[in-house]
């Protein structure tokens, strides 16, 4: 329970949790742990978040994202470990003395105050000069495009407008870090898309570090500079959206981000192709520490990286499977295929690229499947 060497990340990927030499991270977590009763909600973890970075924490419900955020803000006290903001320790420092603001999922706007008063709240508490307050609040309201709604009460606003007020309130004092806990969760699909773009623009404009919690992978991919994938209280992988998508470190990351075919296989040792039951050797890249010969591994292949054809491709590796379903989705076809003895995979073919041969296939027919070595990864279970 207390071992701090316990980690889910291969050593090569752990490197990403620490910033480069000479750079002071906006937030540095060292061995941070949280236990409720005997339930370890956040396992010991290390993490550096860089200055002015849009950093997302992505993970399924209940994995400990909110708990991690609340430890950074100071609402929760870590069971173990320490937290630094801009190079100095904030352990034991109350929330109000930490140079950060939180954007609550429920927005937490003060219902007895107007929009202007809500945004001015922190500046007034901190006793800034009056004329400064007016100007800075107006700037913040302009930033979120609510310039003329200052006198409204918060219950006279739409969901998207409340969201903007909360954002203006969080950034008006220019804190070093703003933490956003699933800020778009309560908005409808269309507004979500708009606000994603808006948030990203704003973060770039004001130059504040954003720590953004979400369980929506598309949101994380489209907005973040870097993403940490969290699962059961652990950080499985930290990297840019491309790294996370193209080079997932574990089976969970591969299937949680986008969709991915996971094919059970047996490792043949470093440098050798793994074996899939009923197929034989398949091309795949080993990542991280090599698995011992004979151990159970997975081969992960993204559906769009798999190609299918009615006859054997002229060059390269291929195997045959049985077509179990072919579903037309307008812009593409989705094929379900049984591979080898116990693997089910699916792949997509753009409607425009569907040849007459492939189009003639019926369920139960044989179909050829292939992928390039670089597009398949061997992952430990």
């Amino acid at each position, binding site marked *: 329970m207390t071992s701090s060497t316990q980690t889910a990340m291969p050593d090569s990927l752990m490197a990403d949790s620490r910033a480069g030499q000479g750079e002071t991270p906006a937030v540095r977590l060292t061995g941070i742990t949280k236990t409720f009763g005997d339930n370890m909600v956040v396992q010991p973890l290390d993490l550096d978040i860089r200055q002015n970075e849009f950093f997302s924490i992505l993970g399924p419900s209940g994995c400990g994202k909110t708990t991690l955020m609340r430890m950074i*803000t100071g609402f929760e006290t870590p069971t173990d470990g320490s937290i630094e903001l801009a190079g100095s320790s904030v352990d034991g420092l109350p929330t*109000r003395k930490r140079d950060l603001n939180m954007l*609550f999922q*429920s927005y937490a706007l003060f219902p*007895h105050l107007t929009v202007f008063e809500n945004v001015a709240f*922190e500046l007034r508490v901190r006793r800034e000069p009056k004329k400064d307050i007016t100007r800075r609040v107006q700037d913040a309201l302009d930033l979120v495009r609510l310039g003329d709604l200052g006198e409204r009460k918060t219950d006279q606003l739409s969901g998207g407008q409340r969201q903007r007020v909360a954002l203006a309130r969080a950034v008006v004092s220019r804190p070093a870090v703003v933490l956003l806990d699933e800020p778009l969760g309560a908005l409808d699909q*269309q507004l979500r898309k708009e606000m994603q773009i808006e948030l990203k623009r704003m973060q770039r404009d004001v130059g504040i570090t954003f720590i953004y919690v979400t369980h929506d992978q598309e949101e994380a991919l489209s907005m973040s500079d870097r993403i940490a994938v969290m699962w059961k209280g652990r950080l499985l992988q930290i990297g840019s959206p491309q790294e996370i998508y193209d080079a997932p470190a574990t089976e969970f990351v591969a299937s949680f981000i986008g969709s991915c075919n996971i094919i059970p296989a047996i490792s043949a040792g470093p440098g050798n192709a793994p074996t899939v039951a009923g197929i034989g050797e398949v091309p795949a890249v080993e990542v991280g520490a090599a698995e011992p010969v004979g151990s159970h591994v997975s081969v992960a292949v993204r559906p769009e990286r798999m190609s299918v054809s009615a006859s054997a491709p002229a060059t390269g590796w291929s195997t045959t499977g049985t077509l179990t379903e072919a579903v037309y989705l307008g812009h593409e076809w989705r094929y379900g295929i049984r591979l080898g003895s116990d693997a089910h995979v699916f792949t997509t073919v753009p409607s425009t690229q569907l040849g007459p041969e492939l189009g003639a296939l019926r369920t139960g027919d044989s179909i050829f499947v292939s992928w390039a070595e670089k597009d398949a990864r061997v992952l430990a279970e």
Partner: protein
Amino acid sequence: MVTTAAQTAKPATVVKPRRKPRIQNGYAWLLLTPGLLSVLLLAVWPMVLVGRNSFATSDQYGAVTGGFTFESYLALFDPVYAKTMGYSLGIAAINTVLCLIIGYIVSNYIVAQSPQRQSLLLLLLIVPFWTDFLVRTFAWITLLGNGGPILWFAHLLGIPLDPLVPSQTAVMLALIYAFLPTAVFPIYASMRGIDPSLKEAATDLGCGWWQTHARVIAPLSTPGIIGAALLTFVPTLGVFVIPVLLGGGKELLVGNLIVTLYTEFRNQPMGAALSMVLLVLMLLSIAIGALLLKARKRSA
């Protein structure tokens, strides 16, 4: 994942059907009759009698003889009565302020507890109401008086303490004791409705304990605070048992005076007149409370 058609449909606006006024047919009145009758017989009718008597004259034995005069009201301008009136208002105001402060702190404590503990604590607040008010007041005599645990303990520590009964302190203590639960409930009800994340937001935005309460929690609890003030101030004006039992009957409240006028002086018209004045004072404070609430709602 393969995306399907974007779901952008807006939720349809919900049109509420206009509800028909309920009380339209004879049956509803039939159902209301028992309640109406008891209110008319037990509350309105006695009040009308008191109102009538306050303008009546009486014979020398105190019996109401009818007629119409303002004499009883004019007699109330006697400095003795005015002084009692002022004293009552003062005591009621002090009691209200103290009950509000303590009630606020207690409510703030209760809402921070787990739901089960909250119910338990509220239950503990209600328990005293199961015992008669008079009995509870007598309990204070035992508690504070000669041979009571407080004196015993003080003497044990070597503090020379006089018996606290009768005294103003005892009256004040008993008044606070009597009205604290009534003050706690409305404040608690208001506080419980406050989203806990507002408190965290206040902390996050730089507030310490005091600022959090001054800027967020107290303003959001005002409906409860105003309600608690009314429930404390108005009934305190009419209290008469506590000053007699614990204050030695030296300083009287309006309630005592009314009792005295009716029973000892046998001056029914004056007792009635003073009752009417008290009633008007109560209605006035309720009106002020309602206005405050309304003003708050308009600004909110």
